[in-house]
């Protein structure tokens, strides 16, 4: 088998394309529906909570003002970290496609660490919100917010596990230029997780109407 074939770029399939890559894109297409539904659910129920805490500054029917929960500077740093992890991920792919295994390892590990940093930030944010009285069952905002961002966090966690697995396999000599498609597939998943956060960061965190219930 040639190196190109091993990399999965000239397999004799009915499409002429690598089935694993095709399946990954199909999976990511279905994930669009998954996260699209969760974001829509959040927007539907964001201002339907009858008691606090609320995402943005809110005045309830009894005239009480509730300050918003979101910490934009903190979340901006988290968004930046995840965005930069996409850069390091694509640099890992560029490295292995040039046959630079050491470079790939460095960038893969960097990506995994940035992913861990993001998850740590999310855990901190969840803990802070919990201290403010927001939980999965406290109100509709809590339910939809934690389900949406929790599922995203779970995706990031799975991505980190995939990246660390690839890193260990590369140390064992199981990942070389001929297996670059494995890195590309992991990269597609990772970049998808990043673009979901691009949408969440804008639609959930930055676009916050002042609520009057």
């Amino acid at each position, binding site marked *: 088998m040639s190196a*190109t074939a091993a*990399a*999965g*770029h*000239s*397999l004799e399939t*009915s*499409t*002429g*394309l*690598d089935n694993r*890559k*095709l399946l990954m*894109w*199909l999976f*990511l*297409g*279905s*994930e*669009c*529906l998954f*996260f*699209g*539904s969760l*974001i*829509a*659910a959040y*927007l*539907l129920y*964001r201002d339907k909570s009858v008691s606090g805490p609320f995402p943005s500054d809110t005045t309830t029917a009894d005239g009480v003002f509730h300050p918003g929960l979101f910490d*934009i*500077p903190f979340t*901006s740093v988290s*968004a*930046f970290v995840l*965005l*930069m992890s*996409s*850069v390091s*991920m*694509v*640099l890992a*792919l*560029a*490295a292995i*496609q040039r046959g630079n295994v050491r470079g790939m390892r460095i960038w893969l590990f960097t990506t995994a660490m940035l992913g861990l940093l993001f998850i740590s930030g999310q855990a901190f944010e969840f803990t802070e919100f919990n201290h403010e009285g927001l939980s999965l069952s406290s109100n509709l905002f809590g339910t939809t917010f934690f389900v949406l961002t929790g599922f995203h966090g779970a995706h990031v966690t799975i991505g980190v596990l995939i990246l660390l697995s690839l890193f260990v396999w590369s140390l064992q000599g199981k990942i070389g230029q001929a297996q670059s498609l494995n890195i*590309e597939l992991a*990269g*597609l998943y990772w*970049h*998808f997780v990043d*673009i979901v956060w*691009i*949408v969440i*960061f*804008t*639609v959930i965190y*930055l*676009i916050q*109407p002042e609520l009057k219930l």
Partner: protein
Amino acid sequence: MTLAQYGKGAPAGDEHHDAGHQDKHPGALEYAQIGVILAIITAIEVAIYYLGLSQTVLVLFLLGFSAIKFSMVVLWFMHLKFDNRLFSSMFVLGFVLAIAIFTIALSTVGGKLV
């Protein structure tokens, strides 16, 4: 004509070009440049958030910048700009359906973006 040739019109029989377009992927420098642009856009988004613009203008700017970031990651980092169109079709199909669900849900049940 195979489905792969549905892609970029690469010459028949050139399977390497048909299947992956890997040789057309950008280099590390271009990726880094895109990364810098993405970081700058994120900084602008956050700055705009604090400018105190009207809600409508704010939403237009934020959605616009978000769409630019989304497109840059999908086109360059995920290589849809360079890869076969069949991959794009898979993703665009899911994305369009998601937007449809999003729009229908918000317009019929009474949710709103702003």
